[in-house]
């Protein structure tokens, strides 16, 4: 059995395998380290960080839905300084590239976050989150219209030479158009999908389940939508894609790669199974073995249709 080459290059970010985590579902790796040593991952993606930190939304913040969940965390985070002092410090001795997920209430805040981090060698790449449905200002509003996508992405691009991944919202009419705007404005890679805007209601109490009323849908339920969007964006842009949305198994990950993803992120599945990332990596390897694939890069966009 030949050794499979699992290494991929995501817009300048070298990953030893194609598997990272979906921002906000894995902390910065520390909480899951008992289950999956963070070094095993192709990269670790942090929870979204803003300049001085945010409180996030009121509780309840989650609801369970058929084969999925809603969350309205609201980008609670302690800000860039704690990111450096705690999370990056903990990550430093580990042999894993770090993608920092960047949030802002304003265009300037995205740039400020990048500037505050850019000379830190422990940061290997950024993921610009213009797609969070759970904050009132910024977040998704930036990611659903071409002009604002161009502005934010362009401004972030001017602030860094590190690999910059732009994370798109699925709550749009034409994802390919948004992706082309991100690419044209300097994205080195595109990640998708963030959560679908949804809602859950407690019929007995006649109230929304979430304190914030609406939240972001993730998990297996959204996989068909995510796969379709990865496929559409793959046909629309040249930059590599980081695919996510409902990935639970190695087979799910392979499907995203066949649809055009260079790398994949495991999110909600971590909650279902704390070794999900490990299992996905092993599952991809097994698929390659079984199918006689010697280089995982062969899978990227390999869908026959």
């Amino acid at each position, binding site marked *: 059995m030949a050794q499979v080459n699992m290494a991929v290059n995501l817009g300048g970010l070298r990953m030893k395998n194609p598997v990272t985590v979906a921002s906000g*579902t894995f902390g910065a790796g520390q909480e899951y380290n008992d289950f999956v040593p963070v070094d095993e991952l192709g990269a670790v993606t942090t929870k979204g960080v803003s300049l001085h930190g945010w409180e996030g939304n009121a509780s*309840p913040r989650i609801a369970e839905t058929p*084969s999925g*969940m809603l969350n309205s965390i609201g980008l609670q985070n302690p800000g860039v300084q704690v990111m450096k002092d705690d999370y990056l410090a903990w990550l430093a001795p580990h042999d894993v590239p770090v993608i920092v997920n960047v949030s802002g209430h304003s265009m300037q805040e995205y740039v400020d976050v990048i500037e505050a981090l850019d000379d830190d060698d422990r940061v290997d790449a950024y993921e610009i989150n213009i797609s969070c449905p759970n904050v009132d200002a910024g977040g998704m509003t930036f990611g659903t219209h071409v002009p604002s996508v161009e502005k934010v992405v362009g401004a972030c691009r001017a602030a860094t030479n590190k690999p910059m991944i732009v994370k798109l919202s699925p709550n749009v009419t034409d994802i390919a158009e948004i992706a082309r705007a991100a690419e044209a404005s300097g994205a080195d890679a595109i990640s998708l999908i963030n959560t679908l805007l949804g809602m859950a209601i407690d019929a007995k109490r006649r109230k929304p389940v979430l304190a914030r009323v609406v939240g972001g849908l993730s998990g297996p339920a959204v996989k068909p939508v995510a796969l379709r969007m990865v496929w559409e964006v793959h046909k629309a842009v040249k930059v590599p894609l980081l695919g996510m949305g409902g990935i639970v198994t190695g087979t799910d990950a392979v499907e995203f790669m066949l649809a055009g993803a260079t790398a994949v992120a495991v999110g909600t599945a971590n909650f279902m199974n704390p070794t999900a990332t490990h299992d996905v990596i092993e599952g991809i390897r097994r698929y390659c073995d079984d199918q006689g694939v010697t280089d995982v890069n062969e899978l990227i966009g390999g869908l026959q249709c």
Partner: protein
Amino acid sequence: MEHNQLVCEDARVLANEGVGPRLFVVSLESPRIAARLQPGQFVHLQVPGMPDHILRRPFSVFDCDPQAGTLDILYQDLGYGSHRMTDLCAGDVASQIGPVGHGWQAPTGTERALLIGGGVGAAPLFLHAKALLAAGVAVDVVLGAATKAALATYDAYTALLGHAPVVATDDGSFGFSGFCTQPAADLLAAHAYDHVACCGPEPLMRIVAQMAADAQVECQVSMERRMACGVGACLSCVVDTTDGKRRACVDGPVFESSKVVW
């Protein structure tokens, strides 16, 4: 705080029995978790047979035998998952993450402690009582329930304490007739406590916290929140505290009641 090492273990069901109205105790063989569990910690359980429900459910450990490698959960059938749990049979297997969280920690030098459990909140206090008694602390226990039949832990506490706990039932079918805050207040007034521990519905914990504060006794409460990850990563379970929003799963579930913003 020492790093609390977590494991994810396939627990085997040993027994699953009704112990009161909509109340059950499931016994699980889960040696790696049982070996390290501290009072007040919980397990994050994947209820088998409901793959369309993707989240685990958090349950406090009621009793635990580290030598035998077993643990008991007292649970209430009140929703989809807990209802499915009533179908578990000996031999079934359920994945659980544990031991999770920050449990009870009586102040050093504690001589007398008051434990107040409302409903299934009696469960996570049992191991705390056990440990306190083993350490030579005097322990008073107040249990509240809707009705006599729902006092599922009464016998266990009686055996542990060597005498019956103080009891209140909402319908007056046993013990004090009314809310358990009354006997708790009486005890607080009658004795000098170093430590109060309370678990139950949030209104109960809020009242107890206030009583303890008024009596200037250190007080801890165990907070419930909906949990996704159960390991501290997702921030779905936060509790408002004087230190900001803290995670119920790993910063709690037990908090100093003075720090909770009710």
